[in-house]
């Protein structure tokens, strides 16, 4: 049953040292505010899962929260590489990080299997691809009818998933719209799910019946954080802040600059600061 609570409490209640955690978003609706709260709370030894780790994962990795990363594409969208992640992989700074690397198809299927309560996902994939050599979690099953050898990966089952969405109704049902990505599956695959939303509305009775809505009883906590996806965007609320993604490339290039930026913009900040960050971006 979804409980409305401040983000600080939602993170404290639902994310623990050593957890496997997903902060999912596919360019759209990245749960930045939730990740920043996790950084402020100094959560340690996380196994971070995400198809497309980008700036906010660079920040968590750079702050030393992650012992392992499960992913399929790690980059700063539209800009280039993730420099804090590279420093962790190439130089074990600030701590070594273990990688479990997949393809998008594998990760999408693994979340789907997690949402579906299955132990593994079966799909046609990794044919001739070398990830199958370096990742012990890529195996095979044989179709008992055709004899075709298919790829299998374990289901993703996070201890906690964090997503950002457009809105909740008063009961805690949550609407996701636009590029919906893998968010529904990431929530349903998780033991605990925290959703930050732009706003709460009275009810969803006017919505089309086939939209992506997560029922309140499939969610653990809902926190209202306007602007909580910044510098990512929320379809219908504010656009992507491309300048911040570009700026990140410089900040992340330097360990000291990075720490100073994190201190200023994350450690000393609060979830309430996000609203101001999107205020100047204009509506969409």
């Amino acid at each position, binding site marked *: 049953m979804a409980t409305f609570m401040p983000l600080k409490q939602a993170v404290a209640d639902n994310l623990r040292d050593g957890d496997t955690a997903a902060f999912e978003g596919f360019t759209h609706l990245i749960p930045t505010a939730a990740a920043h709260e996790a950084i402020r709370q100094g959560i340690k030894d996380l196994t971070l899962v995400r198809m497309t780790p980008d700036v906010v994962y660079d920040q968590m990795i750079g702050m030393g929260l992650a012992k392992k990363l499960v992913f399929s594409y790690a980059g700063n*969208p*539209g800009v280039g590489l993730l420099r804090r*992640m*590279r420093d962790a992989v*190439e130089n074990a700074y600030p701590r070594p990080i273990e990688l479990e690397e997949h393809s998008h198809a594998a990760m999408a299927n693994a979340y789907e299997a997690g949402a579906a309560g299955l132990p593994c996902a079966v799909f046609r994939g990794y044919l*001739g691809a*070398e990830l199958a050599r370096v990742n012990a979690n890529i195996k095979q099953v044989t179709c008992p009818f055709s004899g075709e050898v298919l790829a299998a990966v374990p289901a993703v089952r996070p201890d906690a998933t964090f997503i950002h969405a457009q809105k909740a109704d008063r009961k805690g049902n949550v609407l996701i719209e636009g590029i919906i990505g893998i968010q529904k599956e990431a929530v349903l695959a998780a033991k605990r799910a925290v959703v930050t939303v732009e706003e709460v509305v009275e009810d969803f009775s006017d919505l089309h019946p086939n939209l992506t809505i997560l029922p309140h009883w499939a969610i653990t906590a809902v926190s209202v954080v306007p602007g909580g996806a910044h510098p990512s965007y929320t379809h219908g609320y504010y656009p992507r*802040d491309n*300048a911040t993604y570009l700026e990140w490339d410089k900040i992340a290039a330097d360990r000291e600059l990075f720490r100073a930026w994190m201190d200023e913009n994350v450690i000393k900040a609060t979830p309430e600061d996000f609203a101001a960050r999107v205020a100047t971006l204009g509506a969409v």
Partner: protein
Amino acid sequence: MSDRGFTPNEMMTIAASRALKGDDVCFVGIGAPSAACNVARLTHAPDITLIYESGTIGTAPDVLPLSIGDGELCETAVTTVSVPEMFRYWLQGGRITIGFLGAAQLDRFGNINTTVIGDYDNPKTRLPGGGGAPEIASSAQKIYVTMAQSKRGMVDKIDFYTSFGHGEGGDHRKRIGIDTEGPALLITDLAIWEPDPETKEFTVVSLHPGVSREQVQETCGWTVKFADGVDETPAPTALELKTLRDLKARTEAAHKGAAGSGAKKGSKDG
């Protein structure tokens, strides 16, 4: 810009756009030339279907997206589906006619590396990774590759097989159970390459205007094979150039406006 009135990069984009047809369904993946696909859509192939792996099907953006998940892709799409559906029903389901891939390293058989430079466990450079590429490479009916030529990029042996092209050549794809065609075209800033029908080695079939065989060889890490009759790629038409440049200008203006600051055009995205 050369004195020919267009840059090698413009020639590359326009040559790639010409390879696309109105009934193609293109999967515009990581690092792929969105520009080529959209120039095709805005010139000779208005009915082309563009799919981005974020879930947008049949999208028609007015400006180039900075990332594969830009809002405009969704706003102009016929429909936007979840990411699992995208990979299961649309890519794995065999509905993509052309998968467009870029490469950090490419070999003569169209095998691609976007994972690491150096050893996987102890890399010299950790690259973003494969994203959708491993399954685009096997599930799309054909693969087109675009990249600017360089000895660092076009190498004799790639450090990691992110996605499988023709492997060691010949019928290697078939032997490992892949029944799609694989890399069918390589479009660089200097030339157009096609796989040899037998060996599957990329072979230069057309040189862009003013480009010499030597220039192609100097920027390629393997000994280049040329087809028996090498054509000259027709220069960009005025319409093609105007369409591409207008698209880029609109893109620049739009992204400046949205972000309140200059945003450079997307190279890699996630």
